[in-house]
């Protein structure tokens, strides 16, 4: 099982701040494609991804118990 966190416009579109799903042993890119198929309004290519609070690339493999977060372009400050 993995936890996926949603923020900003992703959270608004999906209507949830997190979900727990059985999607380990796939890459970040595969997870993005999965969510894109469910939420065609969102283009996940523009989002960075963090696993366990560290930025990763699309090739990173997601492991069981990981926390994945999609990071839209940040706008703090």
């Amino acid at each position, binding site marked *: 099982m993995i936890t996926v966190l949603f923020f*900003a416009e992703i959270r608004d*579109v999906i209507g949830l701040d997190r979900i727990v799903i059985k999607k380990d042993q796939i890459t970040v890119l595969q997870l993005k494609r999965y969510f894109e198929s469910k939420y065609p309004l969102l283009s996940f290519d523009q989002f960075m991804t963090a696993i366990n609070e560290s930025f990763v690339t699309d090739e990173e493999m997601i492991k069981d118990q990981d926390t994945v977060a999609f990071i839209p372009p*940040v706008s703090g*400050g």
Partner: protein
Amino acid sequence: MFKIVHDPISVEEVTNLVSRREAGAITVFIGTVRELTKGKRTLSLEYQAYDTMAVKMLGQIGEEIKNKWPDALVAITHRTGKLEIADIAVVIAVSAPHRKTAYEANEYSIERIKQIVPIWKKEFWEDGTMWIGDQLGHAEYPEGSPSKEE
């Protein structure tokens, strides 16, 4: 030294974190909610953060500063939640023996915050709202999409 808070930020409290006998200069950056951006009137803002990761990334900025300016000391507090015009969103305080370092490390901090710290700003206008950086655009613009902040 690195905090995400929900309540109003005390500038003095952040500044005191970096005050020390070795310092000859302290620079403080106070980011406030501006009423007008490109002629459009902001009513209020909402900041959302991935809190734990945001604190971690602020700490990484602190590490980067330690490497680039070993004698600088930095403290950063960012607020989240609903903010009104002129409210303080972020305070960055840097102390250093010499002022050049204090200015440079301070400006470096805000630039890096806008690059790597998972915090998002939602603007509320009279005619809509939008997450800044968002491509979907839940609002209409008289002159196209607003560009990224500054």
